[in-house]
């Protein structure tokens, strides 16, 4: 782990990514403590204010402090994206390993399911699913994760296929190890690396989808602060004040940029072909 971080730190872009990701995680963790106001504290008299010493990023159309809301939105973005990726990766891993180890017929079925899900562009699939099943954080997380299952499933399958007949696994089998034991203690640890890289590369995509759906008004429901819904509110009042959009857009860009750079650095750091290249 330490070696990996050191390797990421080598590249300037990796360093920037790591710092952004650390900042985002820190803000998400500490938002209730460090936010100057409550994210939903309304002060209509001071609505649509520009930045000042009392409100560093200004206020929105209800006079809510934008900095506090941006911070609270960080929690939403982080929680939603981690939950989505965790669920998608778990289901994908499971299905991918089943596809690689089960009889061919089952493999076919799993692959066709992956193909069908992939036939929908992920944002559009999430959009359609939420439109049909209703909004809410739980629905959002579950339905968006569905769109990401095939990617994890395919990589888990390919990795499992690659090591299925490796000598050390054969040896375990000869020694009489059960299927479950082989999968849990040998296959799984060996295929987790690439899955982890894919997970980190997908975090910015999920953040964008969550913000996008919230922007459309079908993501995180109010009064929860989401960067997407803040942008939506800001967009509505764009003629009167640009500040509500600036804080949210800045945070969103910082998060996606930082996690993209971090994901790419992580990918390069784990790529044996690039070892020693800086």
């Amino acid at each position, binding site marked *: 782990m330490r070696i990996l971080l050191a390797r990421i730190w080598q590249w300037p872009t990796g360093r920037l990514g790591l710092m952004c990701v650390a900042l985002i995680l820190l803000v998400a963790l500490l938002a209730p403590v460090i936010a100057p106001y409550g994210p939903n504290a309304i002060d209509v008299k001071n609505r649509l204010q520009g930045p000042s010493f009392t409100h560093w990023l200004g206020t929105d159309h209800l006079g809510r402090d934008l900095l506090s809301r941006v911070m609270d939105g960080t929690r939403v973005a982080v929680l939603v994206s981690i939950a989505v990726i965790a669920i998608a990766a778990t289901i994908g891993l499971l299905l991918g390993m089943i596809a690689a180890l089960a009889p061919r017929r089952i493999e076919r079925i799993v692959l066709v399911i992956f193909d069908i899900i992939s036939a929908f*562009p992920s944002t559009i699939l999430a959009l359609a699913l939420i439109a049909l099943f209703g909004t809410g954080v739980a629905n959002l997380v579950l339905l968006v994760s569905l769109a990401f299952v095939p990617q994890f499933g395919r990589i888990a399958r390919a990795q499992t296929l690659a090591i299925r007949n490796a000598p050390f696994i054969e040896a375990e089998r000869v020694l009489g190890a059960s299927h479950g034991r082989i999968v849990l203690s040998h296959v799984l640890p060996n295929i987790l690396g690439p899955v982890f890289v894919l997970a980190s590369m997908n975090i910015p995509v999920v953040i964008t989808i969550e913000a996008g759906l919230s922007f*459309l008004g079908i993501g995180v429901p109010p009064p929860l602060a989401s960067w997407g819904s803040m942008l939506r509110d800001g967009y509505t009042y764009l003629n009167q004040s640009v500040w509500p959009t600036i804080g949210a857009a800045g945070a969103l860009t910082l998060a996606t940029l930082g996690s993209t750079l971090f994901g790419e650095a992580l990918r390069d750091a784990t790529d044996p072909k690039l070892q020693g290249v800086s």
Partner: protein
Amino acid sequence: MPGKPSPIMKTGLGGYILSRIATLGIVILGAMTTLFFLTQLVPGNLAQVLLGPRATPAQVEAFAERMGLDQPVYVRLWRFFFQVAQGDLGHDIVTGRPILDMVLEVLPNTVALAFAAIGLGLLIGVPLGIYAATYRGSRGDQLTAILSVSIIATPTFVVAIYLLLIFSIWLHWLPVIGAGEPGNLVDQLVHLILPATAIALGWIGYIARLMRASMLEVLDEPHIRTLRAYGVSSRRILWKYALKIAAIPTLAVVGLGIGDLLAGAIFVEIIFARPGIGSIIYQAINNRNYPVVQGGVLVVVLMFVISNLIVDLLYAWLDPRIRRSLAEAGPS
């Protein structure tokens, strides 16, 4: 598996096309079935949901009968397939208009937006990538790298909001909303500039990065070095020989990004209040007009899988290595 001939090599181009089309058919049928069941799984009584809470039980029953919602599921699924095959995507439950008509009416707007965005992305991204590869390590290269990754990371709808703010609201240079007057080509083009740029910016960065990476790889290949040794000018090597090879992987990745392009178009259409498939789906979502959501999404999926097929085939056709192996495999 290394050393194992790919499916393309075994069957030849004809076989490859056929197998791709067969897979496409299965995927489309699967996607249709999924969409059908998704609308069936909507929580609550579908007819009640569609008509809203004020509908009386008698109205709900009559509506269910009229829409065939009282039939068994397999009958409805079969009828859905049959109708779509005939080009019938169902009817808007609010206005009663055929959904296909609604989609066809705005489809040219979405297609124009998508093509303009991709065209702009290629037009600027490709030369930018070539420049970065040629002057590798220079200030310009570094600047391109930073700019590309920043614009790739910025979501399309954020870019769209800022373009709108700067060029329409502050500078008043370009129109804020709509797709332009029908029949007035200049007006339509003017209305296309900001939405297309909003989508294209990310693509420019994306294509520039890809182009740079594959160009660097190609420029290092032995045949290019041989050309250099023969004294062929750098410009000629770049544009006549290297570009052709480097463009192929870029094309493949452009194909993969078409889904994002269509999704980006939805946001952009909403922000610029531009009629298109995206805005139809969005309005339908807000009105809980499920048949329109179903029909609209189906059209987007069709556009997505078919454009992916075209890119795949183009890829097989353009890559001399694949073409040669197909020729060796002979006709199938």
